[in-house]
């Protein structure tokens, strides 16, 4: 079995008596977009700081391509690009100057570098504003540049810490497109967010974090299976035969309310719905009301952490 691209093993971090990370473990495979979903204060930024060699864990280990990450390892930093949560830009430099400066810190120069800067400017949609001072940019433009800077040295692992905070929908879409494009080119990404929709839309695997712990880590469909969905309905006349057939639906359990409302709890909502429709048609039962409750990440998060994502 080949080693994971990024391995996080039993990582803990203490700030004095405060436990910021509690034995966090997960793997990220090469070419994957891994999402870390959690509310503010869950420990996502601390975890990314450790992965980007800015912080040393109190215990545990992180490996990139099998190589342990340690503070001061300058070579491994060349493999990592970081998009910090706060905008980290020089307002009095232009977009191009910001990109050039951060590129030069990695020792990159020459015509190839200039071409790369031009490509990034085009990719983040700032070609026309390349010579303008960054302080004149909108929040969204700054966010895009914030992402562009992390790419200037051609990293293999990109860490994005809440990259869409406070941006307009257009810039958000731009960032999504860029993330997908980079992933399409084979880049491995770790994406943290407290926006469920973003993680759901972008990430192939998701780690749910709360209070410094990974509560669950899997692909989206498997995470959704943690909680059953539900079909709620009432029929005009519920015959004992129909009740019996509903009770026997595979993968579903029937409950009946005092008001005559029926609820089928099931893991496979779509499959159960098809079966339900077939049974009602056979019994020629009239459907009076119908409501469907699908499992989503938010419900899973609530189920796992006992609180809403935006609490």
């Amino acid at each position, binding site marked *: 079995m080949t080693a994971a691209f990024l391995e996080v093993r039993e990582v803990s971090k203490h700030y004095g008596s405060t436990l910021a990370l509690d034995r966090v473990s997960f793997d990220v495979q090469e070419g994957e977009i891994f999402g870390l979903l959690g509310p503010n204060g869950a420990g996502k930024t601390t975890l990314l700081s450790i992965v*980007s*060699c*800015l912080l040393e864990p109190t215990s545990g280990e992180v490996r990139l391509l099998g190589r342990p990450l340690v503070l*001061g390892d*300058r*070579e491994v*930093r*060349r493999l*990592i690009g*970081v998009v*910090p949560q*706060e*905008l*980290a*830009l*020089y*307002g*009095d*430099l232009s977009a191009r*100057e910001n990109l050039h*400066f*951060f590129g*030069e*810190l*990695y*020792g990159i*120069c020459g015509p190839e570098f200039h071409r790369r800067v031009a490509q990034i400017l085009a990719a983040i949609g700032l070609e026309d504003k390349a010579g303008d001072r960054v302080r004149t940019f909108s929040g969204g433009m700054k966010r895009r540049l914030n992402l562009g*800077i992390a790419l200037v040295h051609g990293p293999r692992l990109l860490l994005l810490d809440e990259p869409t905070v406070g941006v307009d929908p257009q810039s958000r879409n731009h960032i999504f497109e860029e993330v997908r494009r980079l992933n399409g080119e084979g880049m491995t990404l770790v994406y943290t967010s407290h926006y469920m929709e973003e993680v759901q839309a972008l990430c192939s695997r998701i780690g749910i974090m709360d209070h410094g712990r990974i509560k669950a880590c899997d692909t989206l469909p498997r995470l959704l299976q943690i909680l059953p969905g539900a079909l709620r309905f009432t029929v005009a006349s519920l015959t004992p035969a129909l009740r019996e057939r509903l009770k026997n639906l595979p993968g579903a359990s029937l409950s009946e309310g005092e008001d005559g409302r029926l609820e089928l709890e099931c893991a496979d909502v779509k499959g159960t719905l098809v079966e339900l429709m077939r049974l009602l048609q056979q019994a020629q039962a009239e459907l009076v009301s119908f409501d469907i409750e699908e499992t989503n990440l938010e419900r899973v998060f609530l189920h796992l952490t006992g609180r809403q994502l935006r609490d």
Partner: protein
Amino acid sequence: MSIVWALVKKELRLVLRDPVALILLFVLPLLFILVFGLFVGDSFGQKPDKRLRISLVDLDHGSGLNKGEPWSHVVRRDLAETANIRIEIIDSPEEAERLIHEHKRAAILVFQSHFSERINDCSFLADGLNPFHRDGVYLDKVDVQLWKDEKQPATAAVIEQVVQVSLLRVILPWMIGRAFERLSDPEFIQLLGEKVNLPVPKQFPFNMLRKEKIKLGELLKMASSGNPDTAQMYKKKVGDGVQAALAEQFKKYNLRGKTWASLTKSSEDAREGAEVSSYENREGSGPLRYGGEHYKYLVPMFVVMFVFFLVLIAGWVFVAERRQGTLRRLQTAPLTRGHILMGKMVPCFALSVGQTLFLLIASRWLFGVRWGPDNWPLGEQLAWLLPVVLSTSLAAMGLALLIAAVARSELQVAIYGGLLVLVLAVVGGCVLPREMMPETTQFITLLTPQGWALDAYRELLGGSQEYQPNTAIIVRSCGVLAALGAASLGLASWLLRLD
């Protein structure tokens, strides 16, 4: 190296694009020098001379008491020997007029060309010139003028009183001495012979003249038996006798002396430290007062003071890097702590040196401040000046990094840095020149880097054309500044947290 260069380039770009930083570094110091240069007096920075200055123009070329020496010189000498007075000679009435007009002098004494002649005419005799009135001497009668600035009446009145007293001290003994000489004059004895009428003693044989009284002149004539030469001799004897008797009577005085010192027999008590100097223009010329003496003090003071304002700039640069999150981003790049520190220190040092050179060039060009004595070629001047510039900037950079190490926000930089820079500037002599401080507290200036820097700068910038700077002072100051800079840089590098 390319990483440090990238950091340096970025830092210089940011500072040079910040108008506030540019104003603080380059415009403000020059403005301070300019404004202070226009408003402070030409004696700024020098130990204040508390003696009363009597300025005068001497147009008197006559001859007085001593052959060839005009009476004006006697008055000048008398004034100069008066305690707490210094004499300033102004070359021309035009210059004197300008100084009064510009309120630079409260009063100026002008000895006109007939002064000696008029003093020679002064006498108690009926045909002599009587220069006196109730309060002193009629200045116009002796061909003297006192030009006064109407805006400084009190000082002018003091000067007038001093002049009056001095004139009295010169004219009165002259007139008394001359009068005393007349006592042995045959004309005076003739007059005395006419005026003294004595009773004839009864036992005298010439009682046969049947006179009850006889004049002194007749007695002398009788005694000479009509021989005119003998009569003349007797008259002289009487004159000498009168003089001798008066001299005996008033023996504390020399009534023949024609000067105050001689009259009062106090010549041995002439005051020491009499000072007569020529007026020289120390104010500079043109609207910027180019070449003014005061710039020798102002330029080093403000150059040194503003070099240390680097503390604020460097502090802000560090804090801004933290605040805007770019420091974190720098740390994710393959940089060492040394790279980041050098990336800050090198541009700060370059800015400091650039600022100083700019101010020195501007001061030389605008205000005529020399970089060393005129007999030093420019290369030699620079060879001494550059180490001073570099060591001062090093000390400033050390202090700047110390502040950056302890301040966590722009406000803290402004408070810690601003206070420190201002206090050190005041203590170091950048606000009040050391020469104007009490002697007992002057040593305190050397507890600050500013004090040492000023010592070195003043040696080079503060001398006259001929002044030869004390190079030992310059070397010592540079050494102290470099050591201070290195020590504070070491301490700051140790204290500085880059997270």
